[in-house]
C-alpha cells in the first residue's frame, strides 16, 4: 500500500483526517487540562500554607 493512497482515504480525506485530528487534539487537551488543574490546585494550596506560616 502506498502512502499517497492511504492519505487520500479513497477520496474522503477531507472528512476522515479532520475527524481523527480533532479527536486526537481533544484527547491530548483533556490530559493537559487535567494535569494543569491538579498542578494549579497544588500551587495554590502550597502558597496558602506558606502565607499561613508567615503569619504565625
Amino acid at each position, binding site marked *: *500500500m502506498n502512502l499517497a493512497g492511504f492519505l487520500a482515504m479513497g477520496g*474522503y480525506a477531507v*472528512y*476522515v483526517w479532520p*475527524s481523527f485530528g480533532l479527536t486526537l487534539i481533544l484527547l491530548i487537551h483533556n490530559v493537559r*487540562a487535567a*494535569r494543569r*488543574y*491538579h498542578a494549579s490546585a*497544588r500551587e495554590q494550596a502550597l502558597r496558602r500554607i506558606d502565607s499561613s506560616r508567615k503569619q504565625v
Partner: protein
Amino acid sequence: MNWTWFHKLASPPHFYRLAGRMTPWFGWPAFLLIVVGLYGGLVLAPPDYQQGDAFRIVYVHAPSAWMSMFIYATMAVAAAIGLIWRIKLAHAVAAAAAPVGAWFAFAALATGSLWGKPMWGTWWVWDARLTSELILLFLYLGFIALRASIDDRERADRACAVLAIVGVINLPIIHYSVYWWNTLHQGSTITKFGKPSMPFDMLWPLLAMFLGFTLYFGAVLLTRLRGEVIRRERDASWLREELAR
C-alpha cells in the same frame, strides 16, 4: 456487609494518594489500546463496501459518543450518591467528570457531522439521535455553568447534582432514539442483543478504541479529582503533610 473499605475510599487523604498511584494503570493501557485501535481502524480494517474509507470515522465517532453517555451516567450516579449520603468526594467526581464529558459530546457531534456530509449529503439534520446528543452537550454546559455561578461549594454541589440527575432522562432517549423515531441516524451495530453486525476485522479496532477511551477517561478523571480534592481540602492538616513531602 463490611463497609469500611468504602469509607476508607471516600476519605480524602486516602483517596488522594490512591488516585495518584492508580492513574498510570489506566493511562498506559489506554494509550496502547488507542494506538493499536487507530492502526487497526485506519490501516488494517478493509474499506466498507458501501461507504468506502469514510466509514473509518466510526473509530473516533462511536467511542466519543459512548464516552459522552458513559461519563454522563458516571456523573449522575456520583451526584446522586453525593446528594443522598452527603459524600463530598462523590460531588467531586461529578464536578471532575463534567468537562471531559462535554468534550466527548462535542467530538461525537463534530465527527458525526464530518461523516454525515459525504454520506447523507448534509452536515446536520434535526433528527432525534442528533438532537438528543446536542441536548446532552447542553446539559454538560449547563452543569458547568451552574457550578461556576454559585460561590458556596456545598450549594453548588447540591444544585448541580439535581441538574445531573434530572438530565439522566436524556440517556435512554439518546440510546433508543434510533428505534423510537424514524431517524436518519443508523441503528445500533454493537450495543444490541445478538451478534454485532460487523465483520471481525472491522470490529476489533473499534472495541480497542471503546476500551481505550474508557480507560483514558479513568486516568483523566483521577488526575482532575486530585486537583478537585486539594481545592476542597485546602485547610486540612493532612494536605500540609502530603504537599510537604
